[in-house]
């Protein structure tokens, strides 16, 4: 340990005192204490190695979770495309059921394209209809309040039953080209039926308004899903990995000020463990429970 040059720190009698001090008994830690500390050091390394060995499954699992999350995210991004089918999930099933969408009558296809351009990929997609049903059902739940309050909402839900009816007709006319006819659509609610009757004779103005509605609803859907949760007030005191020791101590002080003593003490203890070389300020040291 004696490595420093004291040329600039010479104090009177320094050498004499040092010489006398060195003649004092040179007491040393017991062999048992030495062994305990060395064992602790070796155990710490062993634990470190074991943690490293068991880390790869965690990494693989993390990658898998990321892939699944990315897939879900991608599906969520595509979700607005299926908004028009939300009122009747069975209609979606019907419109996507045919094995060969290209074999559908041009009229029906045209109607889909004109009225719901965003819905086209969904209607033509060979994806499993069940998944579409689940998604539509989820969306219906999410959008239920807005559907109930907004007047033009039913218009957006109309095309699906109409397409289904047209599909039925087309299937009757071309039984060979089309897949087995889909099951008949379930009876629509009374309100839906009435709005359908009202809008059916004049479908022309509908596409524009529906497109607007789709865009607006899609935006709402995205908002409701993507809107960040309100930041709790406690985030100001949350520990960040990038915090400097001074910042962490400041946050611990805030916790004490907020009467969150248990959390503050926990953080203070963790701070002592993480920075054993940093002396605690007196005010925080005084908060530590006295032992014995």
């Amino acid at each position, binding site marked *: *340990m*004696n*490595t*420093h*040059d*004291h040329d*600039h*720190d010479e*104090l*009177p*009698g*320094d050498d004499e*005192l*040092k010489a*006398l*001090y060195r*003649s*004092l*008994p*040179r*007491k*040393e*830690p*017991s062999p048992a*204490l*030495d062994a*305990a*500390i*060395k064992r*602790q*050091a*070796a155990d*710490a*390394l062993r634990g*470190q*190695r074991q943690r490293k060995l068991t880390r790869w499954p965690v990494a693989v699992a993390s990658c898998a979770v990321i892939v699944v999350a990315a897939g879900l995210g991608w599906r969520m991004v595509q979700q607005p495309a299926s908004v028009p089918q939300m009122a009747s999930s069975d209609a979606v099933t019907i419109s996507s059921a045919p094995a060969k969408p290209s074999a559908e009558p041009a009229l029906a296809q045209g109607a889909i394209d004109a009225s719901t351009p965003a819905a086209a990929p969904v209607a033509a997609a060979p994806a499993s209809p069940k998944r579409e049903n689940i998604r539509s059902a989820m969306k219906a739940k999410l959008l239920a309040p807005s559907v109930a309050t907004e007047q033009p909402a039913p218009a957006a839900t109309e095309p699906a039953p109409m397409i289904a009816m047209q599909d039925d007709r087309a299937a009757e006319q071309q039984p060979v080209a089309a897949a087995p006819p889909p099951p008949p659509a379930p009876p629509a609610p009374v309100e839906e039926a009435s709005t359908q009757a009202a809008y059916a004779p004049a479908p022309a103005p509908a596409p524009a308004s529906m497109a607007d509605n789709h865009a607006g609803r899609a935006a709402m859907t995205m908002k409701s899903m993507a809107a960040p949760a309100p930041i709790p007030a406690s985030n100001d005191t949350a520990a960040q990995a990038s915090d400097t020791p001074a910042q962490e101590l400041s946050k611990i002080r805030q916790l004490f000020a907020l009467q969150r003593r248990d959390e503050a003490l926990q953080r203070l203890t963790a701070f002592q*463990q*993480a920075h*054993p*070389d*940093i*002396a*605690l300020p007196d005010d925080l*040291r005084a908060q*530590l429970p*006295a*032992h*014995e």
Partner: protein
Amino acid sequence: MDAAVDDDATLMLAYARGEPSAFDTLYTRHRGALYRFLLRTARDPQLAEELFQETWSRVISSRARYVPQAKFTTWLLQIAHNLLIDSHRRKRPLATGEEAERAFELTASPEHEQPEHVLSQFERRRRLQLAIEQLPDEQRTAVLLRLENDLSVEEIAEVTGVGRETAKSRLRYAMNRLREQLAE
């Protein structure tokens, strides 16, 4: 940092990378001086052992975060000093002067000294021990860091968390007290 310090830091980094032998070397190099510093500062052999073990525990648990910014010795003594201050808060009854003196005298004196010389040296050592014992905590810490660990004033200031002038003042006052006690 000089060569020896670099060597200590290198050993600590090697231990952090997973070389147990590096820790053994480091421990062997610093164990005696650290133990005596704690023993004479805490004035309680049992407490000194606890603090000694706890200091090394902190070193072990901090190995991954260790950055050689200062001398390893300074860092090690900072940890020990912080633990000492914490232990003072615990109001543990300190060893009496006699107990502390017994603790210092456990090791046998060299046998090659002549009886008169031994008596004289024994008396001087006893006086030094008592004088150190009677110093206020802060001065005792400063003078032990100087005599036992051979730290500079700047390093004492760093370990104890005070300014250079404060550290120098404590050290000067403590050494004057020791010299006075020895001259009586």
